[in-house]
Every structure is written in C-alpha cells, then in structure tokens.
C-alpha cells in the first residue's frame, strides 16, 4: 500500500497521448507491418508444432493457384464471403452491430430452396429470378426483426442477431428432419438434391454467383458513396443525434438499411445453396457470416478493399484444405490465421491515432 500515496503524484511509466491522424501512406504501411507481424506469429506457431512455416505458407499459395480447377475452387469459396461481407458492411457503416449474417444467409437459403424443391419445373430463368428474390426477402426479413426491436425498444442488436443465427440453424434442422426430408434417403435425414433446372448456371467454369458478387460490390460502393441513402447511413453511423437534428428519420434509415444488409446476406445464402451445394444443409452458412465481419472490418468497410481481402481470405481457406490433405493439419488453421491477422490490425489501429510517451526521469510531468 506504500504506492498508494505516491500514485497520484507520479506519472505512469507509459502514457497514452492522442496524435493527429497519420497520412494515408503511413497508415497503409502500418497495416502492412501488422500483416507481416501476424504472418510471423502464425509462422512461429507452425514452427512450434514441428513444421516448416515456409513450406506451409507455400502450400497454401500453391494450393489455391496450382491448377485451373484450384483457382475455380478458390473463387467458389470467395462468392458467399464477398457477398456477406458487403451485407454486414451496410449495417456496420451505420454502427449497427449485425452479427447475424450467418442467420440471414440461412434464411435466404431456406426461402430460395423452397422454390428449388417444389417449383423446379418452372421455366429456368423465371425460377432463378424467383429464387433470387426469395433469397433477398428471406434474408432481409430476418435482418429486419432485430432492427424493429432496436428502434422500438432499443433491444441490444448484437446479442439478438446472434440468437437469430442459432434459431435459423435449427429451422434448417427442423426442415431436414421433417417436412423437407428426402424420401429417397433411406431414413438418413437430409434434404434432396435440387433438380438440375433449379441449379445456377456456370460462367468460365464457376457458378454465376461470382458475377453477382462483383456486381453487388459495385452496387454497394455506389450506394454508399453516391446516393442520399448512403449519406444518411454514414450520418447515422457518426451520431444518430446529429442525424435527428438534421431532420432525418433515423428509425426509417435503420430499418431500411438492416433490411438491405440482411437481403444482401440472403443473396449469399441463395447463391451458395443453389449454385454450389445444389441442396440445403445446415452448413450452408458454415461460419462465413462470422468471417465476413472480419473481412469487412479489415477492409475498413470499403467495398473495393472487401473484394481484395475476401479474395485473399479465400486463398487462405482453399490453400489450407490442401495443407490438410498433404500435412494432416486441420483447415481450422485458416480461421486461426485470419483471427491473428485481425488481432494485429486491430492493435495497429491504435498507432494511427495514438502514441505512447515514456515517463521522463524523475517522474515530473
């Protein structure tokens, strides 16, 4: 307790001070450093479990690009990730913590799957259009629920959207075990494979979803940068009080944006179920909704950067599956590495705005 008296009079050894925000080039450099540190940290871990980090990182890269098929697979991984990252970005720009992408992906996939299962004889173009709209409506409504409670009673959206993830997941299980169970599966609970007519077409060997994803990136970029809605979102994100003083209908903006955020995630679900899985499983989202949050945050909610980051993450994801088959290391290492990268980038954000000052000798201020 002897330090108690001295506490107030002496400065701490390290003091945090605010600095002017660094120029963009320096910020980019800081982030690059963070990335390098993250890869080194990952490398040390790989070394600790007895492997050569260069060999593992090399396998990840070559695994993702080694053949035309590998590249196509990488792009296939990227499609739902890119789309849902764009989805959560809309909400995050508004500082609305939509952790529910996972559930919105599932909801979109469920709605689209209904048409794929029960109206597969429709004209192909009509069917795909309807499934696309169903994905939008399903994901959008699932995103709208927490927004409604948020604007009405201020219900915490972080936890609510999260609970909705699990509820959506168990809805799929319910459909799988009961109403939508494949009668031809000999008792094994699964949903039937969709009819060929209900499956999305391919372009350059990959399901058409990649075109949808890139188009959405352009659309979200335009929406956020150049429309009145986009402006309103950023004002609400800065301060909802400011928005209110400026005469904006904050409730309406929150509801609209969350519908759109969920809708975009719903498209991700539709595209994944009807383009890649060609059936509905409870793994249709499979953690993509959470990875999307990392991607969106790493990209500082910039749609162009999101395209790049989600591609790099897909390389990591695809490459790690090759690491699994050649070294017997689980693909979970991709998740770990992604998280470590974000840890370092989150840490480096501090140095953009703040700095440490070391106490001068003698402890005088």
């Amino acid at each position, binding site marked *: 307790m002897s330090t108690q008296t001295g506490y107030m009079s002496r400065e701490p050894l390290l003091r*945090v001070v*605010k600095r002017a925000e660094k120029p963009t080039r320096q910020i980019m450099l800081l982030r690059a450093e963070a990335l390098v540190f993250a890869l080194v940290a990952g490398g040390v871990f790989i070394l600790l479990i007895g492997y050569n980090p260069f060999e593992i990182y090399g396998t990840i890269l070559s695994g993702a690009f080694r053949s035309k098929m590998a590249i196509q697979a990488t792009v296939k991984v990227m499609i739902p990730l890119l789309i849902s990252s764009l989805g959560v970005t809309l909400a995050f720009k508004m500082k609305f913590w939509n952790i529910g992408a996972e559930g919105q992906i599932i909801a979109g996939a469920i709605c689209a799957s209904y048409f794929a299962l029960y109206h597969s004889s429709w004209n192909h173009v009509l069917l795909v259009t309807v499934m696309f709209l169903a994905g939008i409506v399903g994901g959008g409504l699932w995103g709208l629920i927490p927004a409604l409670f948020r604007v009405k*009673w201020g219900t915490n959206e972080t936890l609510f959207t999260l609970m909705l993830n699990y509820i959506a997941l168990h809805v799929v299980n319910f459909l799988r075990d*009961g109403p939508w169970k494949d009668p031809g599966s000999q008792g094994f609970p699964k949903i039937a494979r969709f009819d060929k007519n209900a499956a999305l077409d391919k372009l350059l060997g990959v399901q058409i979803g990649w075109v949808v994803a890139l188009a959405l990136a352009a659309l979200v970029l335009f929406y956020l940068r150049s429309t009145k809605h986009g402006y309103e979102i950023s004002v609400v994100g800065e301060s909802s009080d400011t928005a209110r003083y400026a005469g904006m209908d904050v409730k309406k903006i929150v509801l609209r944006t969350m519908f759109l955020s969920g809708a975009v995630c719903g498209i991700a679900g539709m595209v994944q179920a009807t383009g890649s899985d060609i059936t509905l499983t409870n793994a249709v989202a499979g953690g993509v909704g959470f990875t999307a949050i990392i991607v969106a945050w790493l990209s500082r909610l910039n749609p162009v950067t999101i395209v790049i980051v989600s591609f790099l993450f897909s390389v990591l994801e695809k490459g790690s599956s090759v690491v699994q088959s050649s070294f017997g290391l*689980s693909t979970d290492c991709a*998740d770990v590495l992604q998280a470590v990268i974000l840890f370092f980038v989150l840490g480096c954000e501090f140095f953009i705005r703040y700095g440490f000052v070391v106490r001068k000798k003698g402890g005088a201020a």
Partner: protein
Amino acid sequence: MDLFIKFLVAAVGAGTPLLFGTVGEIISEKVGHLNLGVEGMMSIGACAGFMVGYFTDSFLLALVAAFVAAALSALIYAFLTVTLMANQNVTGLTLTIFGIGLSNFIGVYMLERSPNGTLKLPERITASMRSIHIPVLSDLPVIGELLFSYTPFVYLGVAVALLMGFYLFRTKTGLNVQAIGENPAAADAAGIEVSRWKYINIVLGGGICGIGGAYCSMIINGGVWISDNVGGLGWISVALVIFAAWKPQMAILGSFVFGALRILKYYMPKSIVDLPVAFYDMLPFLITALVLILSSVHASRGVNIPANLGNNYFREER
C-alpha cells in the same frame, strides 16, 4: 416424480458450463468490457483442460490448465481493448473465431496422432470427475439426489458464483470495480487504478469461462474429444448475463433454468407434448431472445447494466 427429480439433476449438470461462462462475463462487464469472446475462451479452456487431463491424468491440473489458457486468451482481449482501445465488439468476436479455430485445430492435430484415431480421457480422471459421494448426505432420499449427487464442477461453479458475488457486492475492491463500469473517469479521479482493475477482471473472467469450457470437453461427451464441443454455450452465457441482471448469484438460478431448457427434449414425455427435436434445440436461443426483448422493454425500470458497458476509456479525453 422420479423422472422429475432426474430431470432437475440433469438440468443442474447441463447448466453448469453456462454458470461459469455467465459469471466470467459478468466480472468482465462490470468493468465496462463487453467481451464477445466467451465462446472462444471456453473453447480454449475446453482444449487445454482436456489435453492436460488426457496426458497427466490429473483432474486438478486439467482445471488449472483450462483456467490459465483461457485467462491468457482473455489477456489478448484486455491488451487490445484496454491498452490499445480497439473496438470491443470486433475484438471479442475475433477472439471467438480464434479460440474455436485453435481448439479444433489442436484437437484434430492430436486425433491424427493418437494410436486409435480417438481421444478418450483415461479411466482415473473420469473416476475423479464422477459425482462425489458424500456419506449419509448423498444417501438421503430425494434431497441426497437433488443436492449431493453432482460432479465437482457443479459445486465449484456455485462456489465461484457466490465468491464473485461477494467480491463484487461485499468488498471495497468490488465496489470500486463496479464504479469503473459505471463511470471510469470518476473512478480514476477517486484514485482507483482503472486499467489495472480492468485487466484483473477481464483476465479473471476469462479464466472462469475456461473452466466452463473444460466441462464441455471433459463431461458432456463422456470424456471423448469432439470438435466444436462448446457448441454455442458461450453465446448463451453472454445473453444469460442480462437474464441474471449482472449478479453472479442470479447467474446460478439462470444457468440451471437454461440447463433445464437444454435437456428438456430427453425428459418431455412424447405422449403429452410431441414436438420436433429441432424445436427443443432452438428453445434456449428463442428464450434468450425473448429475455433480451423483455429486458429492453422494461429497461426504464433500472436494470443493472453498467452505464459504460462497451465504451473504452481514454484518460485524456474526459
């Protein structure tokens, strides 16, 4: 009647991991830090506890390992959010992804290298985790089963909850700690070392979550390692904090109620209510959502949410 008692006993068991998670999170939220990494910290505790138990055959060492490993992971969160003032939501979520990933990764790594392709805790440690038999007390009819028939985890959980309740509400330190969550600037001005207590509480809370994780990996699946063994319990714990109104004592009741919800599907006689299994699995999440809504509707009646929850504290900006 017999079935009902069995149901209650099972509910307590199923609620125990939630109890650790909830109490751990309360400790952290009391200093104003909403740590969404509970699921990840529990996963890390699950992995460390299981692996140390597997190799040392010591229940005590397994518990210590689970606590320390999860506390260390909480230290990452504390460093990023307290010292570097990173966004709490994003940091917590990243911790969850990190924890689950690392736990599964190590699990698969060990599985690949185990002689028969499975990992099962040795007999001695499973024996020491079995329900404690207290002479006379455990043999009492009904009461013996209801109160004295549990694994050590259950008693430890209740003890930790009571202890933390005492710490927060009955000691000077605890009241100081609560002041940090309410108004860090005022606490700082009053001479409370804000950053230090934030670190202590976040790390301690993480360690407690880790023991809950050890329950998931060591008890729930009968001592056999499976991936994703925490399976969303950490998230329910985060929500249970609201149900418990930020009081560790209330967390005891809350977790046992939610434990009951989790195992309801095995005990509900089909002749009375015949619902799909998926509905029962959904129930804890559904009820949590309802609790969230109800607590926000009644928010005006002064729920005990720390006023500065989720906001980082920068000393020179008050």
